[in-house]
C-alpha cells in the first residue's frame, strides 16, 4: 500500500470517528432533560404506598383505602387518590398529610350507580409513588 492510499484511509477513519462522536454527544445531551427526576429518584428515597380494596360501596358512595408503608425522604407525605371511569384517572382528591406509616382512606360521593371506577393510591414528597390500580363497581 502506498503512502497516498494510507492517508486517504486514515482520513476516512478520522471522519468516521468524528461522526460517531458527534452522534454520541447528541444522544447524551438529548437524554439529559429527562434525567432530573431520575436523579431525584436515585438520590432520595421514595414513599411506598399500597392500594387496598374499596369498601362500603353504595350506588353513589365508596370508601377508598390505602396504606402508606414508608415515608421515603422527609417527615411529611402527601397521600391522595387518582380515580375515574377509566384508567386515565380524570379526577384527583385533595391531598392529606401523613407523618408516619399507616392506613388512610377517603370517602367519595356523587358517583353514578352500576358504574365501574378505577382508582389508585398516591404518595408524594420529593418523589411521587403510587400503588396498584384497582376497580370497584357501584351497586344499582
Amino acid at each position, binding site marked *: 500500500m502506498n503512502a497516498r492510499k494510507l492517508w486517504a484511509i486514515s482520513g476516512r477513519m478520522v471522519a468516521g470517528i468524528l461522526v460517531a462522536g458527534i452522534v454520541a454527544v447528541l444522544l447524551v445531551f438529548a437524554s439529559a432533560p429527562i434525567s432530573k427526576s431520575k436523579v431525584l429518584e436515585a438520590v432520595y428515597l421514595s414513599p411506598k404506598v399500597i392500594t387496598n380494596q374499596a369498601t362500603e360501596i353504595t350506588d353513589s358512595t365508596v370508601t377508598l383505602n390505602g396504606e402508606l408503608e414508608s415515608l421515603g425522604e422527609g417527615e*411529611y407525605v*402527601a397521600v391522595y387518590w387518582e380515580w375515574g371511569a377509566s384508567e386515565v384517572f380524570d379526577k384527583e382528591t385533595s391531598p392529606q398529610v401523613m407523618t408516619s406509616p399507616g392506613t388512610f382512606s377517603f370517602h367519595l360521593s356523587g358517583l353514578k350507580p352500576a358504574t365501574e371506577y378505577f382508582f389508585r393510591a398516591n404518595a408524594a414528597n*420529593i418523589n411521587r409513588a403510587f400503588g396498584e390500580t384497582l376497580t370497584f363497581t357501584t351497586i344499582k
Partner: protein
Amino acid sequence: MSIQKKYMISSWKLASSLIAGLLIVFILLSLVPIAESQYGGCTVNPRVETLDATNVSTTTATINGELISRGDVSAVFVSFVWGIGGEGDCCTKTECEKNSCQPGNCTDCQNATETEAMLSAGTFSFDLSGLEPDTTYYFRAKAKGCDSVCGDCLTFTTEAYAGQTRLPVLPVP
C-alpha cells in the same frame, strides 16, 4: 487492489469507527453522573408569598398565602407561623427558613398552624380564632420543598370591641 483486500480494509475501517464511537459514548456516559451531581439533587426550592389577612374581626382572622411554584419536589407542605407583635421584630427570612426562630426570640414564630400538602401552585389559608381584640399580630407563610422557604412577615390588627379604647403604654421608670 483485489476485492478481498478492499473488503478487508472497509470492514476494518467500519469496526474501528464503531469501537471509537462506542468508546466516546462510554466516556460521555461516565461523565453524566458528574454533571448531574453538579446541578442535581433537590435544588430548586418552592416559592411562597404571604398575602394580606382577610375577614379580620375582634377575635378571628384568615391568614393567606400563595404557593407560586413547587420547585423540584412532587408535593409541597405549607403552613403559617404567627404571633403577637409588640414584643420585638419578626425573625429574618433566613432564621425562619432555617427553623431557628422559636417562641420568645421573635414575634412571628410564637405559633405554627397545621401543615397542609399542595401538589400544585395556588393559594392557601388558615382561619385563626381566639385572638385578642385590638391587637397586632405578625404572620408569614412557610413552604417545605427541598428546603423550607418563608414569605414576608405581614401584620393585621384585630378590631376593638365597641367602646374599647387602647390604653397608652407608659414608660417603665
